[in-house]
């Protein structure tokens, strides 16, 4: 009985979890290797840490307080709005916007730009992996 419940739970979890495509999996592997090289005690990316990074307020490139949520909003299943231009931004959550996190070059470009905008520096492998894990689960 216990086994069946476990199995059902597992099946449900899997059916809800989004999965990275092959190129993105390779990219995540490279981030993992980088994180491990930097800190041998690294044991895997963590969505909760990613969420904290995503929702945290920092002094950004413009010298003003800003968060990822300033433009992307806190509910990633809904769209956001570019704070500088008012242009709408489509939802980040792959569960409602399957084009998200599918193109490694796009992902790298936006991580570079947005870490600079929000943290006034580039992200390290651990941070990028955590944030991507958080977004992927949305």
């Amino acid at each position, binding site marked *: 009985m216990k086994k069946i419940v476990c199995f059902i739970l597992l099946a449900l979890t899997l059916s809800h979890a989004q999965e990275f495509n092959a190129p993105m999996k390779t990219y995540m592997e490279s981030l993992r290797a980088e994180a491990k090289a930097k800190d041998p005690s690294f044991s895997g990316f963590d969505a909760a840490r990613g969420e904290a990074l995503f929702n945290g307020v920092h002094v950004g490139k*413009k010298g003003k307080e800003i968060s990822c949520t300033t433009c992307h909003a806190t509910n990633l299943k809904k769209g956001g709005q570019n704070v*500088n231009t*008012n242009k709408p931004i489509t939802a980040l959550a792959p569960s409602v916007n399957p084009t998200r996190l599918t193109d490694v*070059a796009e992902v790298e470009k936006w991580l*570079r*730009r*947005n870490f600079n905008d929000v943290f006034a520096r580039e992200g390290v492998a651990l941070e990028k992996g955590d944030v991507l894990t958080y977004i992927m689960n949305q």
Partner: protein
Amino acid sequence: MKKIVLMIALGLSFAFAGNVAPANNALYQKECASCHFGYQPALLNRASWEKVMGGLSDHFGTDASLGKVESEQILDYLVRNARSGKMSANNSTMQITKSPYFTKEHRKIPAKLVEQKEVGSLSNCLACHTTADKGNYSKHAIVIPNYGRWE
């Protein structure tokens, strides 16, 4: 008589008649218009576009950096279609809104219509110029949010 007609035609062609070639480059649309309105290349002159593309890592305070290949392709598209007409005359800054002609054309618009959330700033062309994305800035196509037509 012929001379006069020719001169008028010449005069008109130098004027900004409200139409520019649409920004129909797919890479430009993808990389630039994902954050803001896809300003048509003819709205700035070559020197301005070179400044813009030379400083993307600090693009009006944000990081808009591109890969080398994309950056070169977009610069090429922009300078090939840049114009030195009425709209971009005496403006070699990176901002279309700094053009003397642009300033003159927008001088009568009350600040509150610009500052309202539906518009935000004068750089949000499409908020009022309803056909701006087609390169058409005709007076007849202006509808200012919470105000109406501007003719």
